[in-house]
């Protein structure tokens, strides 16, 4: 359980151009600096946006990581819903499951 490290990596990717350059040059080397479980690193690498949501990554971080990985807004929202369907309710962090009835 290293949600903190997952979020820290995404925080730096969002904020720091140098980290983003390293992501583009050698993502694997960058990932090694953030100790994560196998499930977490797979979710970051693929990416599995839905699983990252279920693992508890804050949406204010995740929505920018999804955009960086090429997800348009509606696809990002759908990826989270799909994540909950596949992996079950959010496990940690700010969100318990909050329903999913809205469709925007």
């Amino acid at each position, binding site marked *: 359980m290293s949600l903190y490290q997952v979020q820290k990596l995404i925080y730096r990717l969002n904020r720091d151009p140098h980290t983003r350059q390293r992501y583009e040059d050698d993502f694997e080397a960058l990932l090694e600096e953030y100790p994560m479980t196998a499930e977490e690193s797979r979710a970051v690498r693929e990416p599995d946006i839905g699983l990252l949501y279920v693992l508890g990554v804050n949406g204010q971080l995740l929505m920018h990581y999804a955009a960086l990985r090429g997800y348009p807004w509606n696809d990002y929202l759908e990826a989270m819903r799909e994540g909950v369907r596949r992996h079950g309710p959010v496990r940690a962090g*700010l969100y318990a499951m909050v329903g*999913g009835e809205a469709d925007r």
Partner: protein
Amino acid sequence: MSLVFAGACSHAPGITGRADRVGRDRLARLHAAFERMRRAIEAAEPDALLVVGAEHFANFFMDNMPAYCIGMADGYEGPIEDPDWLAIPRAAIPGDADLSRRLIAEVLEEVDVSYAEEWKFDHGIMVPLHFLTPAYDLPVVPANINCQGPPLTPVHRAWAFGRALRRACDAVPERIAMIGTGGISHWPATPDSGKINEAWDRAFLDRFAANDRDALLSYSDTDTYREAGQGGFEIRTFIAVAGAAYGARGEIWHYDPIPDFAVGCTVAVMAT
């Protein structure tokens, strides 16, 4: 000299970034409300704009999370997000480090605020500035309340922070305009993005307009989370403004729940 203007408004990134999803007339009404606020701030002839925001992991992270922070620089930049995503071009925004330093020193008499000499504005500040100081020609003093990474500061402390900001504004010779920016009920960046609890919002705005201290401070985070989502924690920014303007009443100039913007879009003012 004093607080010459106090207000509150929404800052949802969809307001600019997904503007094309909302009908022209509805968007025009929101823009007109922001424009009314821009003119009111201009008419108050402020020397600086104090923005009490609720940022979203742009500058502050769980390695060292301040409950309250005030910027202390002669300039800032924003947006930190992809400018295309937010539809706001990247810009330099003037600050006033000397004014910040004096405000911070005064606030510290009552609230243990931290300070930051470096601050990249995210949508929480850039969206309001885009409408309220579109030429970025008014020095900004950014302030932040942690509304994202629990444990959060209690709402009664957000009120105390507002009171301390008022004390600070009254203690400096400059004329200060203040806005709080946050959402009321909303579930941003979650599968429930677009859900809005209009009845809860209207009840909150009634309390804000009445500047009813006890009613504003009666919200528990458990209730807020259930009724208004994790985004509802940002009511702290409204409560700080109410605290700063305590004794005066407010007026809701605009409220429109717009699911595509994932928030009840609000423009409100407090008499000062």
